C-alpha cells in the first residue's frame, strides 16, 4: 500500500497509479456536494447547461459541514455516507470529474464508472470532522446557498488524508479488507 501526495485537478495519469488501500494526502481546490446539490448538478448536465465549477479533473467531497466558528473558514467537516450519491456519481465521472470523497460502500454502477472514466472513490474517516475541518484552509459557497449545509462550496485543502476505496481497476478496499479479517 503506497502513499501519495496529489494536487487537484486530478488527471488520468494521477488516478491510474492509485490502488485500493493506498493513502493519499490531497491538496488544492475541491468541491462539496451532497444529495440535494447532486440532484441539481446532474439536472444541469442533462440540460446541457453550465455547472457552477469546472468539472474536468474535479474532486467532489460529500460533506455537510457545521457552521464555522468566528474566524474559521469552515466548521467540522467529515464525510457523509456515499451511497445516497450513487445514482448521480456515474454522470459526474462521465463528464470529467476524477474523484469522490465519502464513506461507505458504492454501487456496482459507480465502481464500473470508476473503471470506464478513470475515477477514484476515496474514503475519509467518518466522524473525524474536527480533524478534517482543520485541513481545509478556505471555503466559499459558490452555489445553492439556500441549501444551508448542503450548498456547493469551493474549498482549499492542505494534506487532506484519504484512502483509496475503489480504484480504476475494479478493486474495492471494503471487500478486500473484510475478506482478509473475516473469521468463518
Amino acid at each position, binding site marked *: 500500500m503506497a502513499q501519495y501526495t496529489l494536487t487537484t485537478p486530478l488527471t488520468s495519469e494521477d488516478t491510474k497509479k492509485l490502488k485500493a488501500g493506498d493513502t493519499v494526502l490531497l491538496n488544492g481546490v475541491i468541491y462539496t456536494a451532497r444529495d440535494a446539490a447532486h440532484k441539481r448538478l446532474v439536472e444541469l448536465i442533462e440540460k446541457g447547461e453550465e455547472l457552477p465549477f469546472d468539472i474536468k479533473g474535479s474532486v467532489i467531497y460529500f460533506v455537510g459541514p*457545521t457552521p464555522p*466558528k468566528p474566524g474559521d473558514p469552515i*466548521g467540522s467537516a467529515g464525510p457523509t*455516507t456515499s451511497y445516497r450519491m450513487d445514482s448521480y456519481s456515474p454522470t459526474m465521472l462521465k463528464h470529467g470529474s476524477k474523484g469522490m470523497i465519502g464513506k*461507505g460502500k458504492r454501487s456496482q454502477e459507480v465502481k464500473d464508472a470508476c473503471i470506464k472514466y478513470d475515477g477514484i472513490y476515496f474514503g475519509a474517516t*467518518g466522524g473525524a470532522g*474536527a480533524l478534517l475541518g482543520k485541513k481545509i484552509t478556505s471555503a466559499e459557497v459558490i452555489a445553492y446557498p439556500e441549501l444551508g449545509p448542503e450548498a456547493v462550496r469551493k474549498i482549499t485543502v492542505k494534506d487532506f488524508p484519504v484512502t483509496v476505496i475503489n480504484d480504476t481497476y475494479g478493486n474495492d*478496499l471494503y471487500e478486500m*479488507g473484510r475478506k482478509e479479517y473475516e473469521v468463518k
Partner: protein
Amino acid sequence: MREIEFDDIVKAVRDIIVHCGTDLPQDTYDALKEAMEKEKSPVSKEVIRQILENADIAKEEKRPLCQDTGLAVFFVKVGEDVKVKGGLLKDAINKGTEQGYKDAYLRASTCEPFSRANLKDTVGYNLPAIIHFDLVEGDKIDIEYAAKGGGSENVSRAKVFPPAAGKEGIINYVKEVISDAGGNPCPPITVGVGIGGTFEKAVISSKHALFRDIGSKNPDPELDEMEQTILEEINKLGIGAMGMGGTKTALAVHIEANPCHIASLPVSVNVQCHSSRHTHITI
C-alpha cells in the same frame, strides 16, 4: 412538591449539549483506545488513531467532534413530586437544545420529511428534540441525552419474529443487520438490541440500550452472556474501523429485554457510531 425553575432546566440541557458535541465521553474514548491497541489490521488501527486524535482536537479547541451533530434524543424520568415553575418541561428541553446547538456551532439537521426543508428558521434550530418521558417516584428529574447521527440510524432495523426463533434467531438477525451495514454506520460501533415488549417497545429499548456506558456490565447474567456472544460474532465479520477490514467492528453490544406477547418476539437493532456522544444528569 419540589419546584424547579424552567430556566435552570434550559441551562442544564444547553450545557450537556455543548459538552457532548465537543467532548467525547470517557467510556467511549477508553473503549476506542483499547480497540486501537487490539486491532490487527494496520489500516483500521490508523483509522482509530485518527478518531482519537479528532477527539483530542475537538476537546481542546471546542470544535464539534463530527459534522453530523445528530438529532437530540432524550430519555427523561420525571419524579411525581416535582413541578417545573415557569413553563413546561418539554419546552424547557427544546429551548435548551436549541441554545446548545447554536452556542456550540453544531449543525441544525432537522428537516421536513418530504420537501426536506431545514426546520431551523421555522420550528427551531435542530428542533424538535426527540423526547421519551417516564414518570417515577421522587422529586428529581433525571435526563439521559445522546446526539444521534444519521449514518448509524439509517442501518437500524426491527422485526417481529415468531417465538420459535429464540435466542439463535435473535443472534443471527443482529449479525445480519450489522453485516449488511458494513462501514456505513461508522464502526467501531455500539449495538443496541431491544428484545420483547411490543413492536415500538422493542425499538425504544434498543435506542435506550445505546445510552448505557460502554464497558458497563449488564446486571442480568443471561443477557450479559448474550451480549458477549453477539459481540464476538460481530467482530468475526471482518468489517473493521470505517469498513476498511479489521477485527474491531463493534465496541459493545447492549441488550434490553421486556416481557412480550405469547405470540411474538419483537427484536430491534439500533446502531450508534464510534462518536457515541451521550451523558446523564439529575436535577
